[in-house]
């Protein structure tokens, strides 16, 4: 039986980091990821009152995905600088072991860059699977596509990553 967080605070505590990592890997930008976390939690706070017991993960990630896409559409409507594609170092500045941490992150720079080059649908499927850790069934519910489509997107995404990385 799936355990369903009952309060907004519990959702924030349990899923905040997951949402942040989802958004960071989709955008490559920590400020955008932080904005998305706050937007998602706002929507969760509003939506929890009417939440019907079922697949909480599917519900939460559908909200997260929709919030992300809404933000992308909003930005596309206004003339601003494009999202930077390099790792933003601000979150490391206060760490006593910032150099070690940056070294750890820069190892993944090429992987992050390759992820950002994927078409959105493939990137989203790969990130939900490999970063967030959702099953194909959970991804299908979140993205509202058949499981077979999820399977296809993940595999095609990985094949494109292979061309970039290997």
């Amino acid at each position: 039986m799936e355990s369903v967080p009952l309060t907004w605070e519990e959702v924030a505590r349990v899923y905040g980091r997951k949402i942040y990592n989802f958004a960071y890997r989709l955008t490559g930008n920590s400020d955008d990821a932080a904005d998305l976390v706050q937007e998602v939690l706002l929507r969760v706070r509003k939506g929890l009152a009417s939440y019907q017991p079922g697949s909480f993960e599917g519900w939460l990630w559908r909200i997260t995905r929709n919030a992300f896409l809404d933000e992308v559409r909003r930005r596309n409507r206004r003339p601003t600088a494009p999202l930077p594609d390099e790792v933003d170092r601000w979150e490391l500045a206060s760490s006593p072991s910032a150099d070690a941490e940056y070294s750890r992150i820069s190892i993944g720079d090429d992987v992050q860059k390759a992820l950002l080059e994927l078409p959105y649908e493939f990137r989203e499927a790969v990130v939900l699977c490999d970063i967030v850790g959702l099953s194909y069934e959970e991804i299908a519910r979140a993205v509202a596509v058949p499981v077979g489509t999820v399977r296809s997107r993940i595999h095609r995404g990985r094949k494109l990553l292979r061309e970039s990385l290997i």
Partner: protein
Amino acid sequence: MSHAGEQISAYLDGELARAEIDQLQAHLATCGKCAGELQEMQVVRSAVRSLPLLELPPGLIPEADAEVVPLRRNKGFLVGAAAAVVALVIAIAAIVTPSTPSVALEELNSRYGARASLDPAFGPAKVVVPDLGDILE
């Protein structure tokens, strides 16, 4: 069967039924192309999963600061854990018997600790640890 295609990713993610696994494994035993693709997909999958899991910026969610909650990995994580064990064994074997594998693949393996595991059911529990008494004898 024709080439395995997207079944390979589903296999690595633990998303195939037992009958599909048996069918795929039989195919992999006779198809070098698919066996190679499986290995490369495992490298790619491990590379993405090796990305650092970032902490929330301090103060972003005060409710979350008090507790560090590890990210859940789905059952495919066991494949990754098994791959890490396999990678370690391969690394030791490579020291003993140097070979000349694909440079790009080997470089990624060394960077991300990735290596294909042909059986998703394989896990660290299957690693045989010799009894201390056997070693001392």
